[in-house]
């Protein structure tokens, strides 16, 4: 190397100082509590990945408005995070595109009737915020001439969606019993239902809630088809986030718990304003976060519980509106009842 002139040496020192300055400049870039929450709050927009149309969970009505349990959850999160339940952009995702969309930050949360499994959580770098709906896989058959029990499906042609836990559960259940079956593998629930109703298979297997939704559109009406008793899998469906942003996961988890706790404490979207004024009820006031203590911990504006409940109501209201008696599906609460009523829905304490 050539000898340095004093001028060159000065420039090199200057560049070295600049490199240090660049490092320091980048290092002092503002630290946010949670990357996703910060982005959602900055943009005042939650990007929510939902299904490509599943009644009860996420679908667009005739006027193009999104509705369903998953949709309500996203609206609840938006109410908590940005103060407005309408600040949600729903992305309709086909089954195979849901995890890539989440992994590539295309969406902030995936609320798309997705089963919580160890393979997904440990293997895909994802985290489930909780269980929004306890579902289970079953079979729909024709009322006339169809199988009357699961054993009656031996050797049957069964319509199933590709690359889902449903497909794997079907194989596991039949193979473990030495039963033969012929899978008619299709790309989506919609295709599976069409194939079943068209007679390409004698049974359609999916989550019970999905079968109930498909039955609504059955040719000749839903009465011609039954969903067999019993289920072959546990399908705890819940919202999913990308691993690595614990603050965001915590907010989603406690938004879900808030709806469950509200039902337990008898707080609804209709009585929330009255309940919020009952200052003497210490436990209720603590749950509603009247002091804003939990809001500070979660990184959201005070009043977040009230905003959530005003927007979507408690868990029971969400269930009945989308899946239960108030919906077309008319599903029983089953394991989705509160723990106090023999169900599995349980919120840790708001303390």
């Amino acid at each position: 190397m050539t000898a340095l002139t004093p001028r060159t040496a000065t420039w090199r020192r200057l560049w070295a100082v600049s490199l240090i300055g660049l490092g320091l400049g980048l290092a002092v870039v503002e630290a946010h509590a949670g990357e996703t929450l910060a982005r959602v709050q900055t943009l005042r927009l939650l990007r929510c990945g939902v299904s490509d149309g599943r009644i009860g969970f996420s679908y667009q009505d005739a006027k193009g408005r999104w509705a369903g349990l998953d949709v309500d959850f996203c609206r609840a999160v938006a109410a908590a995070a940005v103060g407005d339940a309408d600040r949600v952009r729903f992305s309709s995702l086909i089954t195979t595109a849901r995890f890539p969309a989440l992994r590539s930050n295309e969406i902030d949360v995936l609320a798309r009737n997705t089963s919580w499994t160890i393979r997904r959580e440990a293997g895909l770098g994802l985290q489930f915020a909780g269980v929004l709906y306890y579902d289970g896989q079953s079979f729909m058959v024709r009322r006339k001439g169809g199988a009357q029990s699961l054993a009656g499906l031996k050797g049957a042609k069964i319509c199933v969606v590709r690359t889902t836990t449903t497909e794997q559960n079907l194989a596991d259940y039949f193979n473990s019993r030495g039963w033969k079956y012929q899978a008619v593998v299709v790309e989506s629930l919609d295709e599976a239902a069409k194939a079943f109703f068209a007679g390409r298979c004698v049974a359609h297997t999916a989550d019970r809630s999905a079968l109930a939704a498909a039955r609504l559109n059955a040719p000749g009406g839903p009465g011609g088809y039954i969903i067999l008793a019993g289920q072959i899998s546990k399908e705890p469906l819940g919202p999913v986030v990308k691993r690595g942003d614990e603050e965001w996961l915590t907010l989603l988890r406690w938004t879900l718990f808030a709806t469950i706790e509200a039902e337990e404490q008898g707080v609804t979207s209709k009585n929330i304003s009255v309940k919020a004024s009952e200052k003497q009820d210490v436990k209720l006031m603590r749950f509603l976060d009247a002091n804003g203590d939990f809001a500070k911990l979660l990184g959201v504006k005070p009043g977040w519980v009230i905003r959530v409940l005003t927007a979507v109501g408690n868990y029971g209201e969400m269930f009945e509106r989308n899946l239960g008696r108030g919906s077309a599906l008319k599903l029983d609460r089953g394991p989705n009842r509160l723990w106090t009523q023999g169900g599995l829905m349980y919120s840790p304490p708001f303390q």
Partner: protein
Amino acid sequence: MTDFQIIVTVVVAVSLVVVLIFDWLDMTVAGLLAVIVLIVFDILSRQDVLSVVDAGGGVLALLLGGMVVARTLVPTGIFDYVGVRFLVLTRGSGKRFLLGLILLIAPVCAFLPNATAVLLLAPVILRVAMALNIDFVGPMILTAIISNSAGMLTLVGDPATFIVGSAMNMTFVEFIRRVSLGGLLTVLVLIPLLPRLMRDTWNVQRDLPADLAPPRLKEPVLGAFALLLLGSMILLFLFGEDLPTRIVPPAVSIIACAVALLIVYAVKVEPVQKVLADIDWKTLIFITSMFVLVQALIKAGFMQTAGNGLYEQFGVNRLGVAFTLLFGIGLLSGVLPNIPLVAASTLMIKGYLVTAQLVPEEALGVGFDTWPITTLPVFVAMMFGGTLGGNATLIGASANIVSGGICAAHGKPVRFVAFLRYGVPVTLAQITIGAIYVLALYYLI
């Protein structure tokens, strides 16, 4: 990011490239200004800074270590010694010099980090070029191009190659069996191009002095320690990751850097401060700036959009996707650092393969190791694009920037357009070879 921030990011990226193409501003100053704009508009978060460190820290560590070790060797006269040996082998022929560069650099860069190898070999090349009385800019650019091209010879030849190969759990031997031939062809394609691209150098024939003999090595103690260090560094590059305590190449480089400075301090041939003053900080700043810019572009969501577009456009047509990646990433690698680009593209392509149901959803995780062989052309296309696309421009690869920095330090700054004269024809030829290879893989496996 808000729409406004996305617009700012795009404007900054395009402006930077335009400024560099027309040489309106010193490239490092331009890079720093770009980063400042990104900071002022709150485009970078703490997580982005960590991502930049994650993606670029290794490259910067490799460069800093290589620069310090190479600089430590200068007082020993070893570069003069090897330079004269090389000069003798050229027999005064420019043609033998250029072909010798390929023979010298390609095997070295198949195993060692490109920019580090360029840093270590540059003093030798400069001496030979000066002795042959030819312009050293062309050979230095060729050195960078060969080093980048050789990155496709082995799995560890280039960080971009390694990232893609690791993404599909390809072993060193598998790489040699399925990909190295393509890499070799892209190196060999340089030979017929040289007489046209470097006609002046190719046709040179000088008479060398009959009594040309290598000079004696100076500072034997420093030389012995420095060469021992260099040997250990190379061994650790090759085998460090197999040790019980895994030492990755950037860590090897930083260790070597620290030991080199300790040797300089102990033997007292020259002050440590003088060695550090000779480091090409300007190049390090520019490369850091480019990593920051790429992070901002990734954050803006362009890669995700591209991933969705692939499925919508091509469905399960792997060949269409492979060619799009080859040319698209090749083009982008020409103006952006390929390492973060390829890392982001790997995630994107995994997403595409899952969406297209060519692999199960488990492929998105790190533990998936049963990639169907049918996905190989897609990954290999990414490797070719990411590794060879950087040959096109001065800023396309760290080895190019380092070469340019060395030329500038010796009084001949390389203009962006001057590099294009060599880079574009080479890249076009190599990407064409890559396309043929991908096509062959698609139909033959």
